[in-house]
């Protein structure tokens, strides 16, 4: 199948391209940019007038809820959401049931995903068996099965000796360890940022120190072991400052922020809005502002959806009983654009945070377009709008704090390996 994308505006941050260019696809790969290769006859032509053509988005955290939580979502439903959101590469956290701690499970996930033939999946393996923080997982075997990194998701290791050894072992192979900064045995009953809002609403608080204490120890252990770290879902200004300092020191450390924490604060909890029950908690407006600046200045490498579908039964509960999480795959691009518009950034700077930067963190060649590279492409209308409501969301999880909003940008087409997987016909 040969496809040509004509009259579009090509934006590829990896190669500093931001100009009108046609794109030619053959055999699932980019065949040429600008001028058609000799003898190229397209089977299909897509007119991208007024549209932006960019690499398919790369998301550092998408919970597809398989295996174990199929009542919340399935690979099928969430892959459709990814396609509708222009997201063509997904890193999958290991907190499935059972967790991704053995090669067979990882192979099964990769096999199921491949059969569906939608987004590419990049499993993040469990750092310890069953995520229990006691025994190391078989990291080398898991990498052979397809894992790109290791993580504990939201289950911090309580025993510092085990964490130290896990980082040493991962560093032996040069694997990157992704850690969510959570201090064990601290603020365990907390459900909201420990501040004025939680105090007023009588919600048990989670102090910022729950993030910073963990970061202090992670960074010190990285210094000792030489492990490569990726800090997931930063939530506070203080946490960001610690990561910034660690980077300045020369440690190999990257980090991301979620779309929710980039745009929202604890004020959005309003009258106990359970959509704002998230992990980590939404913090103050000052924290939110710091995260927005940190992403713009490059201290935060990537923006992710932290896609965690939760059903209505999990949300229609009092705030502290509600399940944490929100759907996000279909909001990643619009919320990246919204952030960029607010800060006056160009498309190349905005899209860098959702394409090439996250691709580098997972060590993938995705997130960029050059001749010979996989033709994973997102085509979107920058003037269009995405309306977030329960009927338009394709994800099985219909819950997000952004329900009811109109957000900038609208995905028109998504291609994976040169095949049209999503097209919006108006």
């Amino acid at each position, binding site marked *: 199948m040969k496809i040509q994308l004509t009259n579009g505006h090509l934006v590829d941050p990896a190669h500093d391209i931001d100009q009108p260019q046609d794109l030619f696809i053959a055999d699932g790969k980019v065949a040429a940019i600008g001028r058609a290769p000799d003898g190229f006859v397209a089977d299909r032509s897509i007119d991208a007038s007024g549209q932006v053509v960019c690499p398919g988005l790369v998301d550092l955290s998408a919970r597809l809820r398989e295996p174990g939580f199929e009542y919340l979502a399935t690979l099928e439903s969430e892959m459709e959401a990814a396609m509708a959101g222009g997201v063509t590469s997904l890193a999958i956290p290991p907190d499935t049931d059972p967790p991704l701690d053995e090669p067979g499970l990882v192979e099964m996930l990769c096999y199921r995903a491949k059969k569906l033939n939608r987004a590419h999946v990049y499993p993040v393996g469990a750092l310890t068996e069953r995520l229990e923080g006691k025994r190391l997982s078989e990291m080398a075997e898991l990498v052979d099965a397809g894992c790109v990194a290791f993580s504990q998701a939201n289950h911090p290791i309580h025993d510092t000796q085990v964490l130290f050894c896990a980082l040493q072992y991962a560093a032996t192979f040069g694997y990157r360890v992704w850690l969510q900064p959570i201090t064990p045995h601290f603020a365990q009953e907390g459900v909201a940022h420990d501040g004025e809002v*939680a105090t*007023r609403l*009588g919600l048990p608080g989670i102090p910022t120190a729950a993030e910073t204490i963990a970061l202090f120890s992670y960074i010190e252990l990285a210094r000792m072991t030489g492990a490569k770290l990726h800090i997931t879902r930063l939530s506070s200004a203080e946490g960001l400052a610690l990561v910034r300092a660690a980077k300045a020191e020369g440690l190999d450390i990257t980090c991301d922020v979620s779309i929710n924490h980039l745009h929202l604060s604890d004020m959005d909890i309003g009258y106990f809005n359970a959509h704002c029950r998230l992990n980590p908690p939404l913090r103050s407006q000052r924290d939110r502002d710091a995260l927005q600046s940190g992403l713009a200045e490059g201290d935060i490498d990537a923006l992710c959806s932290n896609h965690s579908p939760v059903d209505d039964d999990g949300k229609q509960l*009092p705030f*502290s009983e509600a399940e944490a999480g929100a759907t996000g795959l279909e909001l990643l691009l619009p919320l990246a654009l919204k952030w960029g518009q607010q800060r006056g950034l160009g498309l190349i700077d905005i899209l860098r945070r959702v394409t090439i930067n996250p691709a580098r963190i997972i060590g993938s060649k995705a997130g960029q377009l050059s001749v010979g590279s996989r033709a994973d492409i997102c085509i979107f209308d920058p003037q269009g709008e995405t309306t977030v409501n329960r009927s338009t969301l394709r994800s099985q999880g219909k819950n997000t704090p952004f329900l009811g909003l109109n957000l900038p940008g609208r995905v028109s087409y998504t291609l994976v390996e040169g095949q049209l997987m999503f097209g919006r016909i108006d």
Partner: protein
Amino acid sequence: MFNPQLNAHGELQHLLSLDGLPREILTAILDTAAPFTEVAEREIKKLPILRGKSIFNLFFENSTRTRTTFEIAAKRLSADVINLNVATSSTNKGETLLDTVDNLCAMQADMFVVRHASSGAPYLIAEHLRATDRHDIHVINAGDGRHAHPTQGLLDMYTIRHYKQDFTKLVVAIVGDVLHSRVARSQIAALTTLGVPEVRVIGPKTLMPTGLDKLGVRVFHDMREGLRDVDVVMMLRLQNERMNGPLLPSGQEFFKVWGLTPDKLALARPDAIVMHPGPMNRGVEIDSTVADGAQAVILPQVTFGIAVRMAVMSMLGRG
């Protein structure tokens, strides 16, 4: 901004919290309560205001005392009262909170009095009623988690007004476990809304939530300093399970430092009143000499509590 407690005319639709309630409505409730105090003095302690209305006491957390005061208030207004201790009933069989509410709505409930261990549970019910267009059903929060206990706050305000008349010249101290106290949060909201110029909270740092000063109160850790020249002392109950653990070493030590004793009370104004929401822990937060002394108004609080709850129910039931 949308206020889930008010209807489109700005009238009380539900009583969920005193935080965010306009001063006019607070005052109107206190004014409405005043004549109801006389009903208890009559030979027939009943008014026909809520005749034919069904009020469901929906208690997801056990509390005989609070439930009883609501029951008495409803019965004095001639309503039919149905008591449900959901703590020992259907939610244990897996029914969700909103399923329980839907079932009771199908039984033609007019009002829910809700007690729940989770902050915000009555908001969830009120929002569900709004979303399902059941605007004729009202919710009264009878205590939710650490968040609010608005009728307790109102009866406290009624008591203060009864003894001190003018809120705008008072210094009020709230003493004890503010961190876990829905009563304290409702008191702070009401006192600041009604114009009390100085609200103090007194207790150890382990029992003070973050950002308390932003709620318009002065925080004291030294009880003697905090009680100096106050007009009203409001003691809070210390739950047994908080007495020994990471928050406090023991009930005895708490009593020694923050228990209200005659010598500490002597630092307050000579005409200061002493309040407590009950049930009291004598010898933990309050000395018996004080609890039974001339300055204590703890039993009148209970009596006023019936009138205040009648006022809230009658205002909601009229709509």
